[in-house]
């Protein structure tokens, strides 16, 4: 499995995704009009797709990063352990993203 490049790519995606986060916070501080612009964007199809992608990139990078921290401590180097950690990060990232979005829609984020 060559997932370390995915860790790097999600990292780069999150890097530029912080612009969205900063825009959102600045809009909240600016006032109702600016905030409405952000909400219009995040409710659009493209905006929702980007935020969904951002959620996955964040959660995958988080789990994949924990995998790297485990390796940094000197554990998990056996072939089976490496595979388990890598698949765990991949599947865990996707599952957590879907669960989080179900929760988001359930509590009214879909409005």
């Amino acid at each position, binding site marked *: 499995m060559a997932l370390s490049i995915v860790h*790097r790519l999600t990292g780069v995606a999150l890097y530029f995704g912080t612009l969205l986060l900063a825009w959102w*916070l600045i809009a*909240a501080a600016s006032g109702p009009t600016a905030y409405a612009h952000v909400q219009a964007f995040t409710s659009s199809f493209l905006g929702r797709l980007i935020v969904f992608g951002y959620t996955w990139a964040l959660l995958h990078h988080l789990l994949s990063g924990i995998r790297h*921290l485990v390796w940094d401590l000197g554990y998990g180097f056996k072939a089976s352990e490496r595979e388990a950690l890598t698949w765990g990060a991949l599947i865990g990232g996707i599952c957590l993203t879907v669960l989080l979005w179900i929760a988001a829609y359930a509590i009214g984020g879909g409005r």
Partner: protein
Amino acid sequence: MTAPNTEATRSMRTPLARVRNLGASHSGTSDFWRQRLTAVAMVLLMVPVIVVVMMLLGRNQAGAAQILGSPLVAIILLLFIIASAWHMKIGMQVVIEDYVQHETTKLVAVMANNFFSIAVALASIYAILKLSSGV
């Protein structure tokens, strides 16, 4: 004449040995440590941050501003912004150092990376402080 009695002059290590392993960033392993430090910080902050974002979903500006400006939420987000900006600055620098081979281009890219990370962090921090002060 008194000989300087510093650790460097008394050391038997050659100048080459002292700079060896400082690497492409010319800053040794400090970035490696800070990358891990900020990573662990964000692992700890991830659940609180997700809770905060969930609380904000579907609210209008007035509601969002009220939540974002409350002390606990503001502190959680400030910690997260500082950790993530630092983390992403180091991460992007590693990427730049890996793929950009021309020295001047690399220098410009590393500098732009610093500017971007600091600007995003400062803009976000400013927004949260403004919301916290309620003006």
